[in-house]
């Protein structure tokens, strides 16, 4: 009950306002603007980060594919490495209330501390609006936005679509490779891949 009151409050307060682009988003096009509340309580506007690379990471703490990257320390390492190079990293939580991966702000803060995760911010998206805006299908789906606000990558985190920890060291990480290429002024060689993982637990997801 409390959860629903909170949820309703968040919706009423307009936790997430999104731009009216409802058509499918493609790599090479402008990344749609969003405003969201971070687990820290801060209000985040995507447009405030124009001029920097922005990584979006779809997260669900109960998904075994996400678990692979957090238990191995891979995601935290990526967050630390890239934010230290000036990249903005947003972990996005699009699970609807009552679904796997839904967390309150304080639960997310506890999780970030426990996992020693280091995103710029974790954004609460219980209505799934940001998820739908970016057509996020899975956790951990990854999106990269360049300093001009253009989406330059959307897809999987790497090329090993498994839940097995031993696959992390031998995988080619698409996010790091795309960021390296873009920062070197090169074309991103693999701008889209199938985003492996668990389906994002939107309110309407039946599986």
């Amino acid at each position: 009950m409390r959860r629903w009151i909170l949820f309703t409050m968040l919706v009423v307060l307009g936790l997430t306002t999104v731009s009216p682009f409802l058509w499918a988003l493609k790599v090479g096009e402008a990344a749609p603007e969003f405003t969201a509340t971070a687990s820290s309580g801060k209000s985040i506007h995507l447009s405030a980060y124009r001029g920097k690379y922005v990584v979006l990471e779809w997260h669900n703490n109960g998904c075994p594919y996400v678990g692979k990257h957090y238990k191995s320390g891979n995601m935290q390492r990526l967050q630390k490495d890239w934010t230290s190079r000036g990249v903005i990293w947003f972990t996005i939580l699009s699970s609807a209330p009552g679904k796997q991966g839904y967390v309150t702000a304080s639960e997310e803060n506890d999780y970030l501390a426990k996992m020693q995760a280091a995103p710029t911010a974790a954004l609460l998206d219980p209505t799934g609006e940001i998820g739908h805006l970016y057509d996020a299908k899975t956790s951990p789906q990854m999106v990269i936005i360049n300093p001009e606000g253009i989406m330059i990558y959307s897809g999987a985190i790497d090329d090993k679509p498994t839940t097995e920890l031993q696959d992390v060291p031998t995988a080619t990480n698409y996010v790091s490779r795309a960021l390296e290429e873009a920062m070197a002024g090169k074309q991103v060689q693999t701008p889209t891949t199938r985003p492996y993982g668990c389906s994002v637990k939107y309110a309407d997801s039946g599986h």
Partner: protein
Amino acid sequence: MARGCRHIGRAVTVSCGKVRMPPRNRSLTLPRTLLLGTALVFSATSLQAEGKPIPHGTLELIAENPWIAAGHALNLGLHFELEKGWHIYWINPGDSGEAPRVKWRLPTGLAVGAIEWPAPRRLGSSSIVDYGYEDAVTLIVPLRAATNVVTQKSAQLAADVTVLVCREMCIPGKTQLLLTLPIRSQPPSTDTRTEDLFAAARKSLPRVAPRGWRFGLAEVNGSFVLTVNLGRQITGAVFYPLVESQIDNAVPQEFVSEPGGFRLTLRKSDQLLKPIERLKGVLAFSSDLAYSIDLPIAKPGAATNGYNNRTHPAGSLQEGI
């Protein structure tokens, strides 16, 4: 799907009825525990083990013939039984999920072919659609025995299976399946204990499309438009793409009945940035009537009708993956 009982004697009927049920009710009552115990004792005498537990279901390695015949092929089956609402995935899992994977460990002289995947079902919601199987499914795996395989001995077949089982959430499972079969020089015969399962599995395998059918496939306004002339009208068809990220899985497929056949419009995937030459997959008319298709995509301006389907030998769905 009903299946024959494997063991002999009174306890057996019970073991078939009870033990094979997916473990829906986790709190075993005392009588049930006793029956389970009895069943386990009996199964120890059987050549084939009972299904191994996987998350929310069981998985069993079965064989279509009671022995391996030197120089002959034999069908093995990975038989999954799942609790209500839980599913596993097709070779192309769709928007999320992962197909089961198998690592075989076989004695010298034995080799397995690719998994023969039955036509899947669409599973999902308005924005995320996966392809997979619910309830029960048997994946057929052909096994070939060399002519000089050592007979008068038993062969132990071992399969290490990784499988993702999902409902609202996904649980990865791993299990090791074992099956011991005698090797003989006589030609193979049918195993009555498993023939129903294999018959059902074969019925749901995609077939080769009849030669007389005419196909057209063109790219129109960001969609692939498939036209099929089969000489009669049908009420519905669903296309399952063999390769990931070619069509948008979640967009509803638009089926239009036409004289002598139908037209099916498939939205192209946003992840597909480079043109593709062919579209391969399974065209399903119903749960047990599906056809393998592999068609060239017409260049703009070219004639778009009248292709013959590239014929597939049965079970060649692994091609190009």
